[in-house]
């Protein structure tokens, strides 16, 4: 096993981390800004994969237009779901969120099964990425690099949005004191619709981007939401950078864990999560619950 091999493992881990980041960051953002724990988050990741399959008609050539259509469709779907289902429960006790978003998870799983069947749906690698790249003599799937670039760009745009625009400052303020923000004249309900739609669109983008590597199945939603929770618990629920750190840690842990202790690879993410929960229950980059003065 030479250096090139480890580099390949590293890139594999980062590629996996990229889809995890896209999946988890919306979960974290939606919780942070809106206080909603979205158990259906993985379902929108799944929906992204199926929508890409549908929009591209299963043809690799349809990848790019499909990806853009997935983004647009997910924004609309996210906004509608927030308006129709989430908005009525903000003021209700938290059990309502759990029941409601869990119901959404079940409904979306059945919907996908009904529309696409229970079998696998996959997409060949888009033509632009069909030949591997060579680094240190080792062939790399170039699609991995695309995934890393996509997630990196998303993280950068998200940072610029949150820290360099007024709208982003409103989102950050909403995580701190929604009622006060509203009393200053900001249409917080509309802001929430936007945040939810954005989080859903990121998850759908992550799911769609994974389709050329991994076939979609109705069961992937539950797996995805579990992975997403592991990532945000490790990174800190509500923290965008926590989602990034958590995703990279899990991605690398998976890629290298499988090399050294293959029979334990499935356990590592849970073990890391348990460790974080014991030592820093609010997550690596999360904030400890503060007492309001």
């Amino acid at each position, binding site marked *: 096993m030479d250096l090139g091999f480890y580099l390949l493992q590293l890139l594999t881990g980062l590629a996996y981390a990229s889809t995890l980041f896209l999946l988890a960051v919306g979960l974290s953002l939606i919780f942070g800004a809106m206080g909603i724990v979205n158990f259906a988050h993985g379902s929108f990741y799944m929906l992204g994969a199926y929508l890409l399959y549908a929009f591209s008609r299963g043809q690799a050539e349809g990848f790019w237009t499909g990806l853009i259509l997935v983004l647009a469709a997910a924004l609309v779907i996210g906004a509608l779901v927030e308006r129709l289902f989430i908005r009525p429960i903000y003021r209700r006790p938290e059990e309502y969120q759990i029941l409601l978003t869990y119901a959404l998870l079940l409904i979306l799983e059945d919907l996908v099964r009904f529309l696409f069947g229970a079998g696998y749906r996959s997409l060949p690698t888009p033509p632009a990425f069909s030949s591997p790249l060579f680094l240190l003599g080792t062939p790399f799937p170039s699609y991995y690099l695309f995934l890393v670039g996509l997630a990196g760009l998303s993280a950068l745009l998200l940072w610029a949005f949150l820290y360099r625009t007024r709208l982003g*400052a409103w989102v*950050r303020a909403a995580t701190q004191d929604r009622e006060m923000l*509203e*009393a*200053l*004249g*900001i249409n*917080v309900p509309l802001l929430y619709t936007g945040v939810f739609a954005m989080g859903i669109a990121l998850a759908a983008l992550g799911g769609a981007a994974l389709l050329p590597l991994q076939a979609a199945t109705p069961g992937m939603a539950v797996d995805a939401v579990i992975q997403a929770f592991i990532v945000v618990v490790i990174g800190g629920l509500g923290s965008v950078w926590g989602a990034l750190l958590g995703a990279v840690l899990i991605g690398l842990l998976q890629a290298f864990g499988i090399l050294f202790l293959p029979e334990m690879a499935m356990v590592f993410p849970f073990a890391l999560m348990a460790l974080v929960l014991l030592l820093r229950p609010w997550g690596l980059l999360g904030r400890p619950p503060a007492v309001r003065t």
Partner: protein
Amino acid sequence: MSLRLEGLSAGYGGIPVLHGVDLEVGEGEVVALLGRNGAGKTTLIKAVMGLVRVYAGQVVYWGQELTPLPSYRRAQLGLGYVPDDRRIFPELTVRENLLIAHRPGPWSLEKVYRMLPRLQEIEHRRGGLLSGGEQQMLTIARTLMTNPKLLLLDEPTEGLAPLIVEEIARLVLELKREGMPVLLAEQNLRFTGRVADRAYVLETGEVRLSGTMDELLHKEEVAALLSL
């Protein structure tokens, strides 16, 4: 008339705290709301802002009935709310706290900094790291950034050092000079005496007394209604 409350009953969880309050704030007038702890001053201000449930009566602002509107609409119409517990966004800088609230009008970052120069000195500091006095300045300045047409000030002097109370008094007098109507909840009679034209004295959610500040300061009942 910039604000008129008619028979206002409001409270929490179906239980009224205010019982049929009538109150008016004229154009350019500073009106104080006096009353001891728990009298309902904060509840009244929050009812005007749409932050507590109104069970009966009306809130009329420049002739418009506000009761069906959410709080952000009220703020957009020109109600400026300064809460008693300040509620600075702790993770945002002083500058960001101000900028997110801005709406077009005479008040801008420059004007706010000119009136409260201390805020400019600490503009890059996070809201959560400010002293009590600085937070109070910021919370008033943040509301001014919305370019309000009526200011609702809830106990702006509570727990502050005399020097800062003095600065707030000067600020309120300056706003009054510019013609800004203010509804001010207070327990500090000296401060209120300096800035307010008229006052209403609340007790257990009802208006017990009202009149000009000069009249009220000479009534013995007022002292009785305000002492514990």
